[in-house]
């Protein structure tokens, strides 16, 4: 009985090793960040949006820089609470190449409310207007705020749904991204 059990167990372990060898990913079936999707480990879906003054900004043009994409709305309480942290972090890291794209979900907001919000907080970074909800759909927006930390290679390193984000979380993520080498 005991020896039969041992043979079974040894057989299972050998089969496990064979399976590990057979199922090794030699063809690059893991994503490796090549597919665009709003998820950690995937290429950040590309978009082009306008600022309040009509200037166009394209995400893929920022390749090589650390980018934080924050989706927000002026009526959203947690967005309001976390905005000072974004402002502080931007002031602290802008000279090291940090880009913050604050994408306003304008399809569920109004340009006048956005203007008042930006003036109230004196936001120093780029505010983009998602008039028709393109970015909300691309990034499968399910809650406001939602923040994506994008590495220099354009791959999402972390997605945080909800807020408010703590300043220390922002700082820790950005320090780690800035420390990565340029691809």
């Amino acid at each position, binding site marked *: 009985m*005991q020896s039969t*059990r*041992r043979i079974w*167990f040894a057989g*299972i*372990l050998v089969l*496990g*090793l064979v*399976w*590990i*060898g*057979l*199922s*090794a*990913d*030699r063809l690059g*079936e*893991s*994503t490796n960040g090549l*597919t*665009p*999707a709003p*998820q950690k*480990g*995937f290429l950040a879906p590309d978009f082009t949006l306008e600022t309040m003054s009509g200037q166009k900004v394209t995400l893929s043009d920022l390749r090589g820089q650390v980018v934080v994409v924050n989706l927000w709305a002026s009526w959203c*309480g*947690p967005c309001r*609470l976390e905005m000072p*942290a974004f402002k502080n972090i931007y002031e602290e890291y802008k000279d090291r190449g940090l880009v913050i794209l604050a994408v306003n979900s304008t399809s569920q907001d109004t340009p006048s409310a956005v203007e008042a919000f930006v003036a109230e907080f004196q936001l120093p970074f780029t505010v983009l207007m998602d008039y028709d909800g393109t970015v909300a759909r691309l990034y*499968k927006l*399910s*809650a*406001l705020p939602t923040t994506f930390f994008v590495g220099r290679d354009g791959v999402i390193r972390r997605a*945080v*749904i*909800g*807020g*408010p*984000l*703590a*300043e*220390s*979380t922002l*700082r*820790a993520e950005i*320090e780690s991204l800035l420390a990565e080498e340029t691809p």
Partner: protein
Amino acid sequence: MFPVIQLGPLAIQSAGLFLLASIWIGMTLTEKRAAHSGLKSDSLDSLILLSLFGLLAGGRLAYAALHFDSLRASPLDIFSLNTSLFDLTGGLAAGFIVALVYGQRKGLAFWPTLDALTPFFATMMVGLGASHLASGDAFGKETSLPWGIELFGAVRHPSQVYEIATALFILNLIGLRKPFSAAGVQFLAFLAWTAGASLFLEAFRGDSTLIFGGLRLGQIFAWIVLAAALVGVERLQSGMVVNEQA
């Protein structure tokens, strides 16, 4: 993926709700089956709750220790409700230590306690699979099979569904059965089945960490856990290990 429920400043993610539900169901099952192990359900409940508290507090403290420089500028963030300030490894270690200390103080025998907690662990594995399904984590690799699901711009293996199905199977097979004759075998059998399932299913995932030219790290880890569990079962069944008595 499932939506996020926004309650004031709190964004409650459905993934978290699945985990909470599995904790509740797991505790209920453990309570109901405590009689089989001869342990008091109150002690098991306290053990689980204190360990969970240890996990949460330890995870936050470990995060603070690992990101000390980031927190120094805004130290009050350590009390933030945001769950992103959490280190899972540190949390698990803290939860484990709390469980050990509580178990020793209450005189809970090691293997019978683990056996009694097996329904809880098995239910948590179902909850973990459901939380992966809700969040999109642990997603599958691309496939042309007819049951593939559209996810992140490709048709993929429904790896989270595989995960839930195998966890339910293991819950029914091991988690809900009466304890084996040797103490500890039920828990180790659960561990072996779970590791074996993970070893098999990792092959269908599209987010594996790869080492040595394509080997999946998760499979190697699962194989080590499987081997340890099988050796443990063998030793317990052979009567080579004396049950620890408190």
